[in-house]
């Protein structure tokens, strides 16, 4: 009979409407900003620089410029220092004199994190970055990018623990005397 199809559809709509009062599955609205979803561990938005203890001296970045080179949209700008400063482990290292990320260009692909050999750059989870001005407000400088390792543990607990373990292992391996070179086979 003509019209039954439409009526069937309306029954589905009614079921969804009434169901939304009882089933969590049918009422999924998140009342942002009062209510927020917990962001998953892996969530990524924009990069930041990790430091240990001190935001200036403790930066893990040694200005090797690999991320600058690999960044697909080229939104990282680094100027390497002229002198060396002791890093968080006490070893003299270069450091970035300027480290800028233009987040109005960044596409959150996290390739900088993937290629960084020093675990110095990681992905942040902050997304409430709407600004009324673009040029200055969306160009993040070194001091805005630097965030502590504790903060990193706060947003990516599992990943940060793994990174810390790896760094500790690497430091321990360095302290030991270098293993004797393998005897070449004659």
């Amino acid at each position, binding site marked *: 009979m003509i019209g039954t199809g439409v009526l069937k559809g309306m029954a589905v709509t009614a079921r969804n409407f009434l169901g939304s009062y009882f089933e969590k599955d049918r009422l999924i609205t998140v009342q942002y900003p009062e209510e927020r979803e917990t962001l998953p561990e892996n969530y990524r938005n924009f990069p930041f620089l990790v430091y240990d203890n001190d935001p200036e001296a403790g930066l893990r970045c040694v200005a090797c410029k690999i991320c*600058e*080179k690999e960044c697909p949209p*080229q*939104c*990282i*700008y680094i100027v390497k220092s002229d002198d060396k400063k002791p890093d968080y482990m006490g070893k003299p290292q270069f450091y970035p004199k300027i480290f*800028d*990320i*233009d987040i109005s*260009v960044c596409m959150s692909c996290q390739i900088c994190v993937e290629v960084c050999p020093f675990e110095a750059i990681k992905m942040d989870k902050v997304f409430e970055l709407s600004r009324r001005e673009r*040029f200055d407000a969306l*160009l993040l400088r070194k001091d805005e990018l630097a965030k502590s390792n504790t903060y990193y543990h706060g947003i990516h607990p599992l990943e940060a623990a793994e990174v810390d373990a790896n760094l500790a292992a690497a430091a321990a391996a360095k302290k030991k005397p270098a293993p004797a070179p393998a005897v070449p086979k004659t």
Partner: protein
Amino acid sequence: MQSLDEIKARAEAAVPGAKIEIVPNPGPANQPSLLLDHEHAGAVALFLRDDPALKLDHCSNVTGVDWLDRKVSKKVKVKKVVDGAEKEVEESQEEFFPGYLEAVYHLFSMTLKHGPVVIRMRTADRAQGAQLPSLTPVWRSAEFQEREIFDLYGIKFDGHPDLRRILMWDEFEDFPMRKDYREPDDYEYEPTPHDEVLEKAKQHYTPRPQLDGAENLTAAQQ
């Protein structure tokens, strides 16, 4: 499916006068291709489409490639007469390969479910001679893709039903996918430049006479 040599031999037999070359592909993908001549390309394409053993009815991908002029220098041993005696002298020779534009077609068979057979055509040069026969009458799927090649590479397809720019606007004059294309200068604000972008952004930096040799200028004037 038949090997590419077989296809070549059969196509040359079916289309008298057709000159087909096999272009090898050294990579692990091992997808060599057939290079068709302009004059018989349409007939060969029809053969490939309609031959009952091939039935390459699905022209999947059509694209252009730009090959610039190249110079390859290599050392050649040349016999020369030096001081009356014939000697073998090593000389570096420069071999010049003129550039050309290329259209590549990837063919599959939906009926027999095999493929790919890759065919390509090359233009005489990258300027006036950038012309190829259109294969749109054989495969409709080439229609928009050949228009795209015309738009981005500037190859004119003879026999195409509607050859206009497709992606860029009609007033546009350049062929942006060519390797020697220079994009317009809009680098006023580049906070994170390096390499090429830095060079372009520098054009917009304010001149700094006190740093860029202004002292020398005044000294010379005095």
